Structure formats: C-alpha cells, structure tokens
C-alpha cells in the first residue's frame, strides 16, 4: 500500500512538474520563493493523495492543490503575492483578447505596466488570472475554485475589462 503511494506520487510529480512550476512562477518572481512553494505544493499533494478518488481530472486536482497552497502559502503574506507574466504571445492572447493591445504589451515597458496592473488585482483575481494563463476552460476554472461556470465567466470578463481599461485608456 505504501509502495503504491510512492509510485503514484512519483508519477504525479513527473507528469505535472511543469504545470506546478508554472503556477509557482506566476506567483513568485523570486527563484527561492518559487522553490519553497514548489516544495510546499508537493507536500500537500502527498498529504491529499489518499483522499483523491478520481472524481475530477488529475490536472484539475493538481491546480486545486496549487491554488489552495498559493492562497495559504505559509512563508508569504498573501496580500503581497506578486504575479509574473512572461513576454509570451500565447499568454497575452489568453489574457487580453485584443490584437492591438497584445502587440503593445510585447514591448518591454508596456509589459511592465501590465505586470503592475495585474499585481494590483485582488489575490483571488490573481488566482483566476493564473488559471486563465494556463489555458483552462471556464468549466475547469469553475471546478478548481468551486464557483459556478457563469460566475467564473463574469468574474474573468470583469478582470479583463478592468485590465484593458487601465492599459488602453
């Protein structure tokens, strides 16, 4: 039984390490903090593994643990969670849905502006944005957070509008 847990844990970490690392990077610009959070997520995966019944997809389960760990990350003051956005056209597309604005954000100074605006969002909005950047559907985000799909849709629409207004006054 214990051996089974070891094997399952190793397999989950192997299959999802990229995913977990990306989440850690969204929340922490600092490499040392990313490492601490990565470790904490793995600890919580281990603690929760016995309770995983396969009711949701493993990726949804991993996102839940990652977001829940980020929200209760013991080493950090949660209000100060800083998000980091890469100069990645795909990510910007997911976030802004606006070609002209995406082109503008590809420039370094504007990217910094985007970063600043995102970091002024509430911690929950940051969590939602991190899941949008991961390319999750509204249904999947709703499953991770525990809200209804229409509610998630409204919230994300509001965040995107808010960002667009601030970046393109």
């Amino acid at each position, binding site marked *: 039984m*214990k051996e089974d847990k*070891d094997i399952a*844990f*190793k397999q989950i*970490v*192997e299959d999802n*390490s*990229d995913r977990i*690392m990306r989440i850690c990077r969204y929340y922490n610009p600092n490499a040392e903090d*990313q*490492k601490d959070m*990565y*470790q904490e997520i*793995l*600890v*919580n*995966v*281990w*603690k*929760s593994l016995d*309770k*995983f019944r396969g009711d949701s997809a493993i990726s949804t*389960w991993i996102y*839940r*643990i990652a*977001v*829940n*760990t980020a*929200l*209760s990350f013991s080493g950090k003051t*949660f209000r100060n969670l800083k998000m980091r956005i890469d100069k990645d056209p795909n990510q910007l597309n997911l976030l802004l849905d606006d070609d002209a604005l995406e082109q503008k954000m590809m420039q370094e100074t504007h990217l910094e502006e985007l970063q600043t605006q995102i970091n002024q969002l*509430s*911690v*929950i909005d940051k*969590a939602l944005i991190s899941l949008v950047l991961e390319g999750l559907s509204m249904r999947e985000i709703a*499953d*991770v*957070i*525990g*809200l209804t799909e229409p509610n998630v849709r409204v919230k994300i629409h509001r965040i995107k509008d808010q960002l667009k207004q601030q970046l393109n006054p």
Partner: protein
Amino acid sequence: MEPNYTNIEQLIGGLKHEDARNLRISKIFQGLMAVMTPLYFIFFLIILISDGQPLKSLGFLFFSLGFLTFAIIFRKLYKEYKSIDYGVPTIEMLSKAAKRYEFWQRKTRLVLIPAILVSIGVGFSLQDALPFPDIKQRFLVIVIGYMITLFFAFMVGYWKWRVRQKPLRDKALALLKEIEG
C-alpha cells in the same frame, strides 16, 4: 522539463518519516490513555473495597472517565488533522479552514468534559489534603482551585488562538467573501 527544484526521493523519505512520527505520537498517546483508563478504574475498585473510602475512590472513577473521554476526543482530533485535504475546490478548503480555526467550536466544548471530570476527580481524591472539617468545604476549595488553574490554561489557549489561528481564520473568511462577492 525535469523537476530540478527538489530531490524527490529525499522528499518522499522526509514525508514518510513525518507521517510515521505523527502516527507514533498518536499511538503512544492513545496507548497511554488505554492503560490509564483501566488502571484508575482498578484503583477505584481497590480503594472502594479495601479502604472503605467511597469518596476518595469516586475520585479515581472520575479520573478514569476523564482519561477515557480525552482518548476519544484525541482520536477525533487526530482524524480531523489527517483529513485536511488541499485537493478540494478553493471555496470548500477556505470554508473548512474558517470552521477549523473557530475558537468556540464543538471540539473546544468537548475538551471541557474531561477537564471537568478530572476536576471532580481531584476534588474527591484530595479530600485528606486539606485541614477543613467539612467535606463539602474541602471539595469546593479543591474544585475551585482546580477551576482557577483551568481558567488560566483556557486564557493561555485563547491568547495562542488569537495570535496563531485567528489571523488564519480572518484571512480565510476575507478570501471567501472576495470569491463569493
């Protein structure tokens, strides 16, 4: 990308070690209660039969009941600790955390049961330790003394909750409000 943040074998080793340590502590404590409960019950019977001191023997019966209820509550708390699950939706995790970090909750009230049982046990078993002639007076002095000690322990517990757990509860409630708002 390989997980280069951590040595997975070392991490598993550490986690298993911690699981084993928690299980060992829980077993030792439950084992201790499993010994103390019948032991004090035997004391109750011996004193009742041989010494003919029913009040003193009653004290040991209350001790025995106190240990038994404490063992049951500890088992419940350990199960609750083991059931913390990060794989549930965020709203559910936050609601559970807010509930877990409440101060005046069911488990706080339950802990009072063994404390009161032991207090009555102390009251009965220390009858000979005080010089007052009246039995009721001796009993009251002992129980009140014990209750004052208990009150201070309660205040220390409250202070610890305010410093450590109340901020976590407030944070969970604020996040819940934000998500649902």
